[in-house]
C-alpha cells in the first residue's frame, strides 16, 4: 500500500518495458538469427552432394527415344518380307551410283581399317558422326549397336568415322561402353570431306561445316544409298532393306 502511494506520484517509466527494450534487443535478435542462418547455410553448402555427372550415353539413348527409335526385335527375314514397310529413299549426292572414295584410317584399338580391304568381305555401311561431343552426335552409333546382329546376318561391315582421336574415343568407351563395330579416327575430317559431309572453312580459326552422313557401299565399291544432314539417320530398317536388295537377298514379293 505504501509503495502504491509512492509510485502514484512518480512518472511512469516510458521505455524500460516497452519500445526502448525492443529497440535494443530486436537488432540483436535479427543479427543472431541471420548469423545462425548463414552458419546453417554454410554447413549445408559444405555437406551438399556432388552435382550429377553428365552421362552422354543416357543422353544419346534419350535422343534415340525422341526420334522414335526402336531396336529391331523381329527376325531379319520377317523384317525384309514385310511388304507394308517402305524404305526411306536415298538422297541425291555427287557420289551416288559412283565409286566410293577409298581410304585407310586408324581404328580405336590401334589397327588400320581400309575400305577396299573390307569391301572384299562384303558391303559396307559408313557412318560419319560428329564425335563424342553431344547427345545426337553419337546417338546413331548407339542405335546401330542395338541392331548390329541384323547387319552381321546380312554380311555387312559397319564402321563409324569422326575426327575424334583414338585415345579420346577409348576414354569414352571406358566411360560409356564400346561399340561392337569399328570406330575410326579421321584427323582433320579429310575422309569426311571426300564424302561431302565436311566443308573446311576458308576463314582461319573456323573448323568448317560438318554433317551427319550415312553411306551404303556395295561390295563392288559403288555408293548405293546416302543420307546427309543435321540429324543422324536412325532408320536401320531402311539400311537393311537396301543392303538385302543390293545383295539379291530381298524376299520375292
Amino acid at each position, binding site marked *: 500500500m505504501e509503495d502504491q502511494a509512492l509510485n502514484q506520484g512518480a*512518472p511512469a*517509466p*516510458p*521505455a*524500460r518495458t516497452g*519500445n*526502448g527494450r525492443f*529497440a*535494443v534487443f530486436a*537488432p*540483436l535478435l*535479427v*543479427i543472431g*538469427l*541471420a*548469423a545462425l*542462418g*548463414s552458419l546453417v*547455410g*554454410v554447413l*549445408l*553448402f559444405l555437406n*551438399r552432394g556432388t*552435382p550429377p555427372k*553428365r552421362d552422354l550415353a543416357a543422353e544419346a539413348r534419350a535422343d534415340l527415344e525422341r526420334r*522414335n527409335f526402336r531396336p529391331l526385335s523381329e527376325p531379319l527375314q520377317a523384317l525384309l518380307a514385310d511388304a507394308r514397310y517402305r524404305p*526411306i*529413299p*536415298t*538422297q*541425291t*549426292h*555427287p557420289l*551416288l*551410283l559412283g565409286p566410293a572414295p577409298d581410304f585407310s584410317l586408324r581404328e580405336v584399338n590401334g589397327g588400320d581399317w581400309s575400305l577396299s580391304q573390307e569391301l572384299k568381305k562384303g558391303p559396307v555401311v559408313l557412318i560419319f558422326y*560428329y*564425335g*563424342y*561431343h553431344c547427345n545426337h552426335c553419337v546417338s546413331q552409333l548407339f542405335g546401330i549397336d542395338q541392331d548390329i546382329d541384323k547387319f552381321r546376318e546380312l554380311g555387312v561391315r559397319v564402321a563409324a568415322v*569422326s*575426327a*575424334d582421336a583414338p585415345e*579420346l574415343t577409348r576414354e*569414352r568407351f571406358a566411360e560409356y561402353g564400346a561399340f561392337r563395330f569399328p570406330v575410326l579416327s579421321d584427323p582433320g*575430317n579429310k575422309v569426311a570431306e571426300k564424302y*561431302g559431309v565436311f*566443308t573446311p*572453312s*576458308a*576463314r582461319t*580459326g*573456323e*573448323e*568448317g*561445316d*560438318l*554433317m551427319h552422313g550415312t553411306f551404303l557401299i556395295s561390295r563392288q565399291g559403288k555408293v548405293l544409298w546416302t*543420307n*546427309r*544432314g543435321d540429324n543422324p539417320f536412325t532408320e536401320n530398317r531402311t539400311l537393311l532393306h537396301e543392303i538385302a536388295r543390293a545383295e539379291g537377298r530381298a524376299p520375292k514379293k
Partner: protein
Amino acid sequence: MTPSPVRTRMVRLFAVALLAIGSKASARDPQAAFALKGGWVECTVEHDDRPVANAALVILDGQGNKFADGETDETGQGQFPLPGGGSFSVEIKTGKKTWDPIRLVKVDKEIQPAKVLLSYQLRPCCRGLVKRDTSWKAAAPTVSPSDRLLLWVIGAAAACAVLGAIVFVRMPKREKFADSASS
C-alpha cells in the same frame, strides 16, 4: 447436355496438340520417283504420301544446260523426254523452296536412283560455314539450381547479419537507454 465452354476449349486444345504432334511425326521431306516409259521420263513428286501438284521441274542435261522445264499435274506427275547422253539432273521447286538438284543416270531400261528423298541446301557451296567444334570438351563446372538457391540464402542471411550489426552500432544512445535518460 451441352458441354461447358471450358471443356469444349480443352477438347479443341487437345485436338490441336494431337494434330501438331501427328504432323511433326509424319513430317518428312518430299520424295521424287523417276521411271522411264517409252523414251520419256516420268517424274512423280509426293509429300507425306500425297501428290505435290504444280511443282516446278527444270531438267538439265549432262553438261548442266537447261534441257526442259514444266510443272507437275494434280497427280504430282510431270513427263519430259530423256536427255541424250544418259545422265542428267532435275531441279524441283515446291512453293518457294528449290530443292537440291537430283543427279540421275539411265542404266539399262531404268532411271537410277528410282526414288529420291529431296534434300535442301546440302551442297557444300550452299551451306553457311559455321564453326562447329567437333572435339570433346569436359563440361564446365556448373552450379546446380539447388546449390545456387543455397548460396542465395547464405548471402541473404549474411547481408542481414551485416545490416543488423550496422543498425545496432549506429543506433542513437537516447533510444537505447531511453529509460535512464528520462529518469
